């Protein structure tokens, strides 16, 4: 059964009408400031009385350590990598996102299925399989995409955390060193994100602007979504 609130088919035991909360996804490549903005948004929403949870890519109890180990071994292939992400996502969906949406919470997702789509696509040139895999994902009420160009991104990453093996897509052998590979890999990701921005109507926010400007734009996109969504009384768990 394909339900309009789900991306494809998957979990037949969830009744979409029970998901009273709002799901807001913040997408964008590495180093665009997603987590900083999510932290600020959470505070902004909580002050207004909303119950808010955030959920982050590869942060599930079940999978976060496993994914770290797999990436440390450097020999994860396309299927394994995508299935590790999907398992992590499924665990967070069942244990964080769905309970929170049932209780009327606002869920802020730091990356969402589109990250998996982009990463799988640049490794496989096939969009069908990965989209089928994430068929069980609820469609967000809002997707904001923090867009950056690869030149600015490269500078930012060098100035802060530095480039690592996976952020540079070294498994794809796109360049001889981390820097070349990073630029080629991130360009491919941005290109795919741009295509998805049109296909899935993302709200594109220019991540090169100042943090204040970005935050205001994000708030501007979120407000209409919450228009008819009253804060949970006492911001506590009301039970499903």
């Amino acid at each position, binding site marked *: 059964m394909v339900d309009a609130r789900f991306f494809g088919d998957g979990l037949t035991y969830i009744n979409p009408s029970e998901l009273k909360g709002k799901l807001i996804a913040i997408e964008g490549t590495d180093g665009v400031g997603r987590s900083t903005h999510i932290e600020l948004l959470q505070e902004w929403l909580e002050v207004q009385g909303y119950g808010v949870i955030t959920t982050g890519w590869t942060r599930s109890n079940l999978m976060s350590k496993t994914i770290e180990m797999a990436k440390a071994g450097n020999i994860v292939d396309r299927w394994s990598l995508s299935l590790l992400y999907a398992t992590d996502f499924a665990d967070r969906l069942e244990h964080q996102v769905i309970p929170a949406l049932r209780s009327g919470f606002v869920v802020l997702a730091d990356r969402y299925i589109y990250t998996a789509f982009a990463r799988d696509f640049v490794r496989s040139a096939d969009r069908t399989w990965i989209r089928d895999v994430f068929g*069980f994902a609820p469609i967000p009420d809002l997707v904001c995409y923090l867009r950056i160009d690869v030149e600015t991104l490269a500078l930012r990453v060098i100035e802060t955390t530095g480039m690592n093996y996976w952020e540079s897509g070294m498994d794809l052998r796109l360049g001889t060193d981390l820097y070349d590979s990073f630029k080629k890999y991130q360009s491919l990701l941005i290109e795919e994100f741009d295509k998805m921005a049109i296909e899935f109507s993302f709200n594109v926010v220019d991540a090169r602007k100042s943090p204040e400007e970005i935050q205001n734009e994000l708030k501007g996109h979120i407000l209409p979504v919450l228009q008819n969504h009253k804060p949970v009384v006492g911001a506590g768990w009301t039970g499903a």
Partner: protein
Amino acid sequence: MTFSPFKSWDIVLADRYMYTAFARDVIRGVSAQWVRKLYAFAIKPDMAFYFKVPIEVAISRLLRGTRGQFKYYEAGMDMNLSPDLTQSFQIFQSRILMEYDKVVEEFGLLTMDATQDIETQQELMRTLVSDTLRGYKPKRGTYGRRTLFWRRFDVHKSE
């Protein structure tokens, strides 16, 4: 990771395959279409056997065996079917057997009567496998039994 021996022309014996997921996951509330799409990357086996036993036989074998009891998930205790382990196993595994029947039909698995004694089953399997392997040239590298065909290598953390 089953790929490496497969690509080198070895024979791969798989104890359970994607069909297990097609039966189990669907019983746990996953869409039958979804789970088939999920495993779209799996190589279709040259032969697939389904060892069929009535639920009562499965229960008595597991209770008489060295284990002496059911595991939590094989009894489907996560599904709140019954507080009693044996009863839960019976309900859960009966549903799985029904789902397996559909899978066997859909994918043309070879059904083995697993109530027969081991020798009889082996005889039949060997005949069937030999038929499939006709014309296949055996290849060997070493004659030792390998336990490892790939090795994980560590990378130093940057911290």
